[in-house]
């Protein structure tokens, strides 16, 4: 990295507002050629917005963009692409129904006589794959929807390279990957920088930033708090920069006395909307006063499992027994009535009706439960009182039951949903990613409530892909991979690396080689030892041990 060379990208005083929200506030940022620059920050800090400005998706309200030292104005992604900037989005920008080749060339199709020249596209893609050692060329004629996330991500990278990108923006590329897939992504990133490409790497996970990046910039509330060299900083420093205060959590010691089996599942098989089997024979049992954590990389059947348990999805085979009764064929409504509550993964679509105020949302799921209804009629007075209770008790902001759900921030929406579901005093609580997209303060709150529920004797089935959370809350952890439980372990007996291996479908014994390859110094610092005595560590890998 020579000092004389202009940075690959320089952002100067970028400001972007959405109505009253200032997503980026005079942000400066600079990416050196051939390096990896990480961008970290909490949910809503403005990372994606900043990169969208660089990619020509948003027009900044103020500020300048320089690529290779030249000032550029991007009216559309096309301009950015032409200037050699490529972006791999948080949500993949792939057309499910089209093939890999078609996706890669989309918008840049080589044409002969008006027809797309697929064979020249194909050979170009094969060249790229052999240069960087991608396996994407095996799937050229496969429709994207049939590929796993890891492959889809590599298709995205190939797509950017095909378009001639020198600068690649990767927006939270690791969120959906197993630790092992993350490792191979880092190898790809190394390969790319070795060949002169420059990368911007967005992540929440400080350990990843420390491992993969040369430089790290922290965003908070739309402002760039600072830029540090990865080699000269620590997780504590980064965490402080991110959150603006020291982060410390304390959890009470795990001391549970599980009672009778509340829920048991036997040989459960479930298909998804596309009629593919997603749950392929799962057995499990959850007892009173116990939290069973289900860990796994998203898309391994957790969603279908949860839907089958809560009555939202038909079961292919197997039985579900609740409090001694076979409920395999029981309707969702009957299950609600018998005391199963559910905090859904998608609060926006499922947990709340966005156009309803909180009063009407308080009835959601309670339509047949007294005292909210009397025969066929709804007692709106009682429902309103209930809504106001939830708002007060769970500190929902704004504290107004007449506010529309859509006007609440994600975290507050989640608090309301959690409140509504916990107020039932259920016998079984199924909670799916209950802290996703929620800020640290609210995460803490929700965790406490879940533990209280358990202590009060409720059986809890808790699904998450955040390992620290899983380890902290669960009394037992079931690891799900490709629709099956690979193993059920005691969270105190495994470390995150081992959990990661299980999530990749490998049993601990059979994976020595992978553990070895991950054993470089950077990774080691990520790994928390199983004997970690400090009762808690913070979210996103922030730990108080060093």
């Amino acid at each position, binding site marked *: 990295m020579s000092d004389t060379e202009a940075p690959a990208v320089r952002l100067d005083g970028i400001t972007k507002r*959405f*109505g*009253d929200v200032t997503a980026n506030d005079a942000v400066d940022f600079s990416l050196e050629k051939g390096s990896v620059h990480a961008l970290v920050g909490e949910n809503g800090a403005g990372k994606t917005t900043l990169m969208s400005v660089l990619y020509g998706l948003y027009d900044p309200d103020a500020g300048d963009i320089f690529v290779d030292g030249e000032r550029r104005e991007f009216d559309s992604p096309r301009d950015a692409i032409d200037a050699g900037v490529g972006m791999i989005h948080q949500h993949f920008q792939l057309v499910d129904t089209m093939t890999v080749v078609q996706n890669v060339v989309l918008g840049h199709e080589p044409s002969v006589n008006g027809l797309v020249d697929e064979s020249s596209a194909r050979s170009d893609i094969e060249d790229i794959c052999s240069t960087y050692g991608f396996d994407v060329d095996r799937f050229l004629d496969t429709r994207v929807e049939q590929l796993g996330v890891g492959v889809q991500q590599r298709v995205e990278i190939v797509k950017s390279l095909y378009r001639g990108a020198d600068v690649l923006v990767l927006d939270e590329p690791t969120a959906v990957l197993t630790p092992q897939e993350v490792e191979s992504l880092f190898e790809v990133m190394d390969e790319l920088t070795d060949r002169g490409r420059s990368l911007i790497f967005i992540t929440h996970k400080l350990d990843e930033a420390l491992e993969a990046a040369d430089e790290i910039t922290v965003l908070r509330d739309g402002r760039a708090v600072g830029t540090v060299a990865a080699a000269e900083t620590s997780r504590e420093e980064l965490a402080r920069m991110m959150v603006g205060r020291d982060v410390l959590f304390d959890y009470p010691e795990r001391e549970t006395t599980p009672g009778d089996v509340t829920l048991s599942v036997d040989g459960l098989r479930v298909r998804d909307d596309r009629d593919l089997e997603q749950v392929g024979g799962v057995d499990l049992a959850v007892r009173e006063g116990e939290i069973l954590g289900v860990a796994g990389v998203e898309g391994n059947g957790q969603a279908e499992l949860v839907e089958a348990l809560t*009555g*939202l999805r038909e079961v292919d085979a197997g039985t579900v027994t609740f409090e001694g009764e076979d409920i395999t064929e029981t*309707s*969702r*409504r009957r299950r*609600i009535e018998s005391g199963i509550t*559910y905090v*859904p993964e*998608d609060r926006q*679509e*499922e*947990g*709340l*009706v*966005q*156009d*309803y105020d909180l009063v*009407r949302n308080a*009835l*959601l*799921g*309670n*339509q*047949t439960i007294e005292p909210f*209804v009397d025969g*066929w*009629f*709804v007692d*709106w007075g009682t429902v309103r009182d209930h809504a106001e209770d939830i708002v007060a008790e769970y500190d929902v902001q*704004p504290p*107004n039951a*007449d*506010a*529309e759900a*859509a*006007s*609440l921030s994600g975290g507050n929406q989640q608090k309301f949903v959690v409140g509504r579901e916990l107020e039932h005093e259920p016998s079984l609580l199924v909670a799916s990613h209950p802290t996703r997209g929620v800020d640290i303060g609210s995460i803490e709150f929700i965790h406490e409530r879940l533990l209280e529920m358990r202590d009060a004797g409720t059986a809890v089935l808790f699904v998450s892909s955040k390992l620290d959370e899983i380890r902290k809350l669960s009394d037992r952890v079931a690891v799900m991979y490709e629709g099956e439980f690979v193993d059920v372990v005691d969270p105190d007996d495994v470390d995150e690396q081992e959990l990661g291996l299980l999530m990749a479908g490998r049993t601990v014994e059979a994976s020595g080689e992978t553990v070895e390859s991950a054993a470089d110094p950077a990774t080691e610092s990520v790994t928390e030892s199983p004997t970690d005595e400090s009762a808690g560590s913070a979210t996103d890998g922030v730990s108080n041990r060093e």
Partner: protein
Amino acid sequence: MSSDAPGARAALDRAADRMLRATVVERFAIAVAATLLALLLGSVVVAASGYDAVEFVSSLVYGAFGTTSNLAFTLRQSTMLILAGVAVAVAFRAGVFNIGVQGQFVVGGFATAVTVLFLAPHLPGGAVGGVLLMGLGTLAAIAAGGAYAALPGMMKAYADANEVITTIMLNFIASGVVFFVVDRYLRPAGASAPNTETFPEYVALPSVVFDSASFSVVGLGAALATVLVVYVVMARTRFGYDLVTSGYQEPAAAYSGVDPERNVVATMTFSGMVAGLAGAVFTIMILGYYSDPSTFPRFGFDAIAVSLLAANNPLGVVPAGLLFGGLDAGGQYIGFTLDVPPELVDGVVGLVVLFVAVPELFRMAARRTGLGGRGSSESPVRRAESDGGDGR
């Protein structure tokens, strides 16, 4: 807000702004604006075709409200449009596009006719028989309309067949089959028209206030009572809550324990029952016999416009139904007083629907004219932003 207007103006803007966002007021403003714009465009077309636009509009108004008999005609059309409009609203509210109200209305009316004609000989005559026959005929219509609507409901729920298309096909089928049965089996000997026998004269709604052979205040009362019942069902019962929730957000409804399949069938059935009731009122109050459905008015289609104008709110259907009833009556009056082809009124109704579909157009117009407050034409007024206002 970067407005440099003087404070008073800014306050006014804010007030107007808030008003525009309040959904009910906004819907109402949009409905009025859409109607006026459609009428304006209609008048332009009239003028462009070489007719007198002023005369067109004034005749439209006179034809609707000018005399008692004109008013009676308006109310008669409104009665039908309100009933059919509620039928549409029920379904649309639940997110089910029942375009088949016309067919359900035809089948319902047919059931009334069959019931009345077949039972009349077996029941006493006079007022008692009349009330009994009308009551049973109406029940039959409600049952038949509901059943005929349940069919596309089941097709949607269990075979994923798009209800817009199935209901339109079922409209054609209802009309064809009913014609066949009427002409083949119910036409009295010696008659050439595909009509059934006329009902006994005691099967008729009493003439109160208006002395009209085809309009009775009782009919209008029945329509308004139906509105009220439907409103209460939608707003106060758990069935209504399930239904409306499905309309807003299907996944949330499923989450809350609504069985999506059964709900679609239930919604269609409920909607079809109201449509069937409309058929009964049409048969008893207006026709007094039954006939070839292809010669009937297209209440079931105009009702779509009525319901949309009312933002699918059962209470809003009343003013919307009155408006369209007036348009109908005025249109007919134009037909026999002016040169202007009455089909124009149908076109105007279509324009109203079109404009109602584009609230954004009016929101933008409001901003352009400065009524909407916010100077920036870039950020559309979103409900999500309004929490600042409501949040106290």
